[in-house]
């Protein structure tokens, strides 16, 4: 039974509104003291806002814990408290072991210094000893793939090179406890894959990791447990699959539909806006459970604001562990091929055949873009639905057949040769 390495009880963090935006000027404070001395001693009641409220949890040694939630839920604040960057207002936490925190890529880099100098500087700031950095120096440079430019000032690096070096330094931090905040959300796809690979290595090496991310696929792959923070409070904690599935289906639990009319943030831009996404069952109504044998539709409703040509909406289906089932786009509808779309409300409906997807939960990501020109919106995990086993292809069998899809394929059995069977019987 492994020990608890992080224990938090009653953690709360309160900010005074105005503290973050404006810092006062000393001259104003002094002027106030002279003109209205009584006010100087009064504490004006300021609005406060609790970023975290009564958060309790335990992390065991070697565990990889995911921290998920909407923007502003308090995930980064919690990491900052565990990293000692800011102190809690209430509660306490106990941390057993050396902590390394990666809240940003490129902490401490100075543009005038060379890559080599910055590696040492950034490594030292992150907590590595000089000897450690010297030992790992070649590895870091190889991981970043910038051997040729290691002695050039960083101000001459492209943003890609900068990110690669910065992440390479951070990736070679080997504390007992690692706190990571969405650092993987930078760089190109190839680099992100590399980072995920490295994160996987770290997770497997027995280190304790607390991982904050919006990339639910990465969270599901790397973490065993997860905590869902909502408005500073722990909404749910438990196994990563359960927490992620619950988080993803918010707003779509009852009806299998997610709408954005009247919401504060409408995905899209001045050309196109997303209005709703729904899963529609055979009775033409929104549903969040579908029959494995029956075809159903996923409908994307959107508003075109300017006349657009060559625009396409697309959807992506993922299983609960993040595996992508498939991606498809409405450019497959020949009727609208090359036809300009005048402003108005549109729906793009995709029919998913029955006896195709396997049983289990799925979630939907939608996007729209003008290919090779401009992305219009991209929303991950907007609705989720559950494919129910009602007697489909594998329905007769007690276990779920592994696989993302479970199509009804044609099989043909044919008898070829009688003679072999008879020979066996005789011997």
């Amino acid at each position: 039974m492994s020990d608890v390495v992080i224990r938090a009880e009653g953690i709360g963090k309160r900010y005074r509104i105005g503290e973050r935006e404006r810092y006062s000027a000393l001259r104003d404070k002094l002027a106030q003291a002279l003109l209205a001395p009584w006010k100087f001693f009064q504490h004006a009641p300021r609005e406060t806002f609790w970023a975290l409220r009564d958060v309790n949890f335990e992390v065991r040694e070697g565990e990889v814990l995911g921290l998920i939630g909407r923007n502003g839920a308090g995930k980064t604040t919690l990491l900052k408290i565990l990293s000692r960057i800011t102190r809690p207002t209430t509660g306490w936490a106990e941390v057993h072991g050396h902590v390394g925190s990666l809240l940003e890529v490129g902490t401490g880099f100075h543009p005038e210094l060379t890559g080599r100098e910055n590696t040492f500087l950034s490594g030292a700031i992150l907590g590595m000893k000089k000897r450690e950095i010297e030992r790992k120096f070649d590895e870091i440079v190889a991981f970043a793939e910038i051997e040729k430019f290691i002695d050039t000032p960083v101000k001459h690096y492209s943003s890609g090179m900068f990110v690669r070096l910065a992440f390479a330094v951070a990736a070679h931090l080997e504390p007992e406890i690692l706190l990571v905040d969405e650092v993987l959300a930078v760089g190109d796809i190839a680099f992100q894959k590399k980072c995920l690979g490295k994160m996987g290595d770290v997770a497997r090496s027995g280190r304790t990791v607390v991982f904050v991310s919006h990339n639910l696929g990465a969270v599901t792959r790397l973490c065993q447990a997860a905590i869902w923070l909502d408005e500073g409070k722990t909404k749910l904690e438990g196994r990563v699959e359960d927490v992620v599935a619950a988080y993803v289906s918010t707003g779509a639990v009852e009806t299998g539909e997610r709408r954005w009319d009247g919401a504060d943030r409408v995905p899209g831009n001045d050309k196109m806006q997303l209005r709703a996404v729904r899963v529609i069952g055979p009775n033409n109504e929104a549903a969040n459970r579908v029959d494995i044998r029956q075809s159903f539709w996923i409908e994307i409703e959107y508003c075109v604001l300017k006349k657009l040509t060559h625009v396409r909406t697309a959807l992506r289906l993922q299983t609960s562990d993040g595996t992508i089932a498939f991606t498809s786009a409405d450019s497959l509808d020949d009727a609208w091929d090359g036809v300009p779309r005048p402003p108005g409300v549109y729906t793009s409906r995709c029919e998913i055949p029955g006896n195709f997807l396997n049983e289990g939960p799925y979630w939907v990501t939608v996007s729209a873009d003008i290919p090779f020109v401009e992305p219009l919106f991209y929303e991950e995990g907007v609705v989720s639905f559950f494919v129910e086993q009602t007697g489909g292809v594998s329905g007769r069998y007690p276990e779920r057949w592994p696989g993302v899809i479970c199509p009804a394929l044609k099989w043909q059995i044919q008898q070829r040769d009688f003679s072999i069977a008879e020979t066996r019987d005789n011997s």
Partner: protein
Amino acid sequence: MGELHSISTAPELAAAALPTQGAPRPVLRITPPSKWLELRLGEVWAYRELLYFFVWRDVKVRYKQTVIGVAWVVLQPLLTTAVFVLFFGKLAKLAPAGIPPLVFYFAAVLPWTFFSGALQAATNIVVSSQQMITKVYFPRLVLPISAVLGGLVDFAIGFVVLIALILAYGIRPGLAALWLPALLLLAILTALGVGLWFAALNALYRDVRYVVPFLVQFWMLASPVAYPSTLIPARWRWLYGLNPMAGVIEGFRWALTGHGQPPGALLLASTAMVFVVLLGGWLFFQRMEGTVADMV
């Protein structure tokens, strides 16, 4: 769903990857800031390597950015000295007899340049490092300390030139030169003490940094940089002596050239004051440290 996670935590593998397994682990307790004042001295020592890196960074960056590089470190105090010699020495006739004006002024300008540079650097460093402070933990005290120590490198180079100048004029420093490290230390502690107050205030009220250049100017006039301390009337000598930098500058000149007053009782008084300011600054800074990440 177990097969989906290929993360195996085979104990042998884990033990091999973490060499510190078995060694006693540091336990950290994270609590809200306490009402009482906390002085965390040991922490700064634990982060001394980081302190070295910050000083190294500032020095490297400073030298890379100027075209003339190292030469500027010497040119700047020399040019100031030349101006002083011309205006305060020749025109205002403030320079005393018995010591070459160039030596009289350079021996004062050098430590003064160190002090004023250190004070201003310490004031600004917390705010200018705000990006880093909100992303990584280290005892924030390391920053103003590194700002003050960074000036020592420039000072050392200028000091070599000063010694060369003194020897060139045929002046031989005697045993009195042994006072130099103590005087330098007093200058460092004064810069740090006042710098901590200003660094904390600047993080809270951003206009403080505009006050510092004025303060430094006034302070220079209140110190025997441009004139000898004999200029001060006898009955005000005690007040004047309370200024620690007065003792440092006068003592510096005296230690190197034998000219002027040796350090006296007043220096002890001002040293005591410096320690009070330093302690207060340290406590105030640590108090502010808890909230700076929220504001900066």
